[in-house]
């Protein structure tokens, strides 16, 4: 690929890289349920 085309590709991809948002995730944890199936609050 010529340097000019490479530079053009770089410019094209720049907004995608610059705008890359952080990856977000929600982790839900339970533990020590102790056989409970009808918790009373």
């Amino acid at each position, binding site marked *: 690929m010529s340097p000019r085309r490479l530079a053009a590709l770089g410019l094209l991809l720049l907004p995608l890289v610059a705008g890359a948002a952080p990856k*977000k*995730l*929600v982790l839900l944890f339970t533990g020590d349920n*102790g*056989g*409970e199936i009808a918790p009373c609050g």
Partner: protein
Amino acid sequence: MPVLALDAGNALFKSLADGQDPTAKLRAGLLLEQLGAQGYTAMAVGQRDLVLGVDFLKKKTKGAKLKLLSANLVDAKGQRLFPASVVTTAGGLKVGIVGVSPASADPKVPAAGADGSAVLPAGIQGQPVQPAVAAEVKRLREKEQVDLVVVLAAVPYVEAVRLAQGADGVDFVVQSHDGRGVGMAQRQGVSTLVPPGERGRQVAKLEVSVEGTGPFTDLSESNRARESQKLVEANIARVSERLKAEKDEATRRSLQETLASFQARRDALARTAAATGPTVGRTYLLSYVQLGADVASDSAVQQQVERVEPPGSAGH
């Protein structure tokens, strides 16, 4: 936002003697079925999950999406009884989830388990926790190239603290064994220890944001600092008003000292808020969803629960 649901273990039985209770097997079966139906990815195998043996657990989860994990439980021949980990992708993040169970205590030794081990049923051996976790985390980081490692630690608190302090490559350790309930996420050396709540009364919600590498920052510290800062600002305004109106010189001096102390506190809180509240990098925020009477029950699940524990029964 994408969600991963995980259980840190000791979910199925009330106590080690629960095997004698005729409803215990029904409850445990219903819980495993519902963990799967509600989309849980994995659960660590704790001491109190082994009351009816390994075969019961395997039979109840055969073909299920829910994976029971333990990096250190082996049979009499030293063969691993459950997978050590599972890898899943959510929110564009490759997450490695490791399960770990207590190391075996010698039942003949007085105060067995005081060191963070636990007495396990005959034929089941719990190998030392830290080497088992370290080996699995190394494999996940090097071979699977995961972005995030969560250890579901169904081990006593003292063992979980040791694990969190020394487990390189682990982001979060979620501890379950002692029924400690809710609490704050605590940075312990290289990773963060998270309390998951207990007895189905709440769900711990950890909101994670990942950009780049490096240690995670607890956003709740800056949030707490900002909230406290607002309270201190209100106190400063009240004291300033009183100072304007006050004529007595001794009282004015006292108010000025109080004002100076509030202003120093406000400045310290502002520094905390600014220092620990990045909007980029790797951050987390822990909160709890309380599952009280105000949270509606699923009627189909409720019917199944009432078949095992009818309303008005001792357990309901």
